[in-house]
């Protein structure tokens, strides 16, 4: 099958949806002729013109807020943030406005708003360019949170996001833009809330997402060599979360590890652990073990970043720990 880079797959999703639906409109910083900081919007300005591919000033609260108003009035804005780190700036517009407007107003308007934002570390980019805030948005009713790990998923989930009438925060891991994967020529979408079982296994369930999926799969191979058969679940969307697949897997393997890149407290890893502790406690034959970043901002120096962000070895050790080995 045809191979595409992750960023190309995203660009293709945008182009297809823009052709399909004239109300799909993009804005963000440098997404026009420049093609976006990560090349996702390359060629779109040329094809769709500056009325639908709009370069904005550096004003995140303003242009995300503009997205809220536009989404409420018949446009499907897909907004790019250059890095998700400064999603801190438009939080108000996302959390108190976009997420709540349909509900507060008794269901009389829709909010087909997509915000795309790169997450993640392992790039020596320092404390303000390595964040991942998916947990914050998962917390808020009215927001869906997407975290694709493959070019195939990136495309299919972005198309779903654009067609969704809810606020969707679409997080793209920077380490993934440059990876290649199979993407069919034919049109497809991927439903939200369906995790992918990336590897079937019977000894332990490892729930993960985004870039950690790749790392976890590599660990699973190593585990296999040590005779441990790990099941790897890639959440794909952390909200909605595929509770069914997680619970089924844990009921089969009786052991749970959650591997996530960023900090532990009140995070996706907490939620997965809590879910299982609530609904499948009796099936567990070992403690739940979480692999996360250590409790520090992501440092710049390679020797320190390596220490703060989770290592593959951490995942490996976590599996041994829950298995009591």
């Amino acid at each position, binding site marked *: 099958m045809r191979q595409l880079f992750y960023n190309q797959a995203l660009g293709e999703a945008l182009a297809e949806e823009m052709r399909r639906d004239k109300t799909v409109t993009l804005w963000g910083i440098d997404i026009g002729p420049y093609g976006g900081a990560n090349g996702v919007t390359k060629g779109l300005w040329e094809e769709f013109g500056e009325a639908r591919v709009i370069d904005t000033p550096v004003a995140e609260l303003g242009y995300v807020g503009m997205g809220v108003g536009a*989404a*409420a009035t018949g446009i499907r804005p897909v907004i790019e943030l250059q890095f998700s780190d400064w999603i801190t700036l438009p939080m108000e517009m996302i959390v108190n406005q976009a997420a709540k407007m349909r509900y507060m107003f008794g269901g009389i308007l829709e909010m087909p708003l997509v915000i795309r934002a790169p997450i993640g570390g392992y790039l020596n980019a320092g404390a303000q360019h390595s964040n991942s805030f998916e947990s914050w948005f998962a917390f808020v009713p009215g927001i869906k949170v997407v975290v694709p790990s493959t070019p195939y998923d990136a495309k299919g989930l972005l198309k779903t996001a654009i067609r969704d009438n809810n606020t969707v925060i679409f997080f793209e891991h920077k380490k993934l833009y440059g990876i290649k994967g199979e993407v069919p020529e034919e049109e497809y979408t991927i439903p939200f809330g369906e995790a992918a079982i990336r590897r079937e296994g019977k000894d332990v369930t490892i729930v993960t997402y985004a870039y950690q999926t790749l790392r976890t799969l590599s660990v699973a191979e190593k585990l296999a060599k040590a005779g441990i058969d790990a099941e790897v679940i890639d959440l794909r969307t952390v909200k909605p979360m595929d509770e069914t697949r997680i619970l089924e897997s844990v009921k089969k393997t009786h052991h749970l590890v959650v591997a996530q890149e960023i900090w532990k407290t009140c995070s996706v890893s907490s939620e997965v652990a809590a879910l299982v502790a609530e609904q499948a406690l009796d099936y567990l034959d070992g403690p739940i073990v979480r692999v996360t970043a250590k409790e520090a901002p992501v440092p710049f120096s390679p020797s320190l970043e390596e220490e703060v962000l989770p290592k593959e070895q951490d995942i490996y050790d976590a599996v041994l720990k829950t298995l009591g080995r």
Partner: protein
Amino acid sequence: MNIPREKLLMMYERMLKIREFEDRVRVLFAEGELPGFVHLYLGEEAVAVGACAPLNDDDYITSTHRGHGHIIAKGGELDRMMAELYGRATGYNKGKGGSMHIAYPKLGILGANGIVSAGIPIATGAAMSAKVRKSGQVAVCFFGDGASNEGTFHESLNIASAYSLPIVYVCENNLYAVSTRQSRVRKIEDIADRSIGYGMPGVVVDGNDVVAVFEACKEAVDRARSGAGPTLVECKTYRWRAHFEGEVDTYRPPEEVEAWIKREPIAPYEKLLVQQGIASEAELKAIKDAVIKEMEEAVEFARKSPFPAPETALEDVWA
């Protein structure tokens, strides 16, 4: 005054409606009939009405925490509004919104807002949407003097100007944000001067003169609709009541309040209509009587309406 008679009378009626509605809310709140809290628009009627009068039904507005006036000015029905304030299922927003969150997109009303200044980028987005869809719609964005110190104001006005969006920013300068007299937290007298920083026209008008507001806004709306871009219109006005009902207002000199109440917008407009032969006193009285009756019915409607059923609490979160 080159304004059609119908429009002039509509402005009269809507100012009256606001006045009656707010005065009734004041009483009902004091009597404990309304849950939550309410911010009244009494004294500022001319701003909302003058600014909405140039608009079509499908033009947009965004409103504020002090939103009842804007919604009535844009054509909101008193009964469904009152039901919303009572938290009833028949309210514009099924009781989920309340006083600070009334919206009715069918009339272009994109919502009152509990967050100061949050309506500014939202209105800007509605204007962008109108531009992208080439619909010819215009947005009017209401906000206070306090809100003009928020970053949203700056980002939005710059964006609207850069893209020549069809929008009019209407600043209701009532001198205070809660207890804080604006001269204590801002060195400039006229917020309209900020328009210079965005390369858009800025206008100051007497916010208690509905004709002046109308004329300034009409020009700005026409300009917006023609594709020439946004305007900032600052309306000098005053709120009669405390910031919210139940607040003890110790921060404004009583003389100041009284002076502004004397300058109230409706009576002089009434006089003008009669003097100019637009309507007789009897005709105006008929309008007033009808408003009072509508108001009575609105309260009755709200009181008789059911509370939303608990099982609807989780509806409308997701599409």
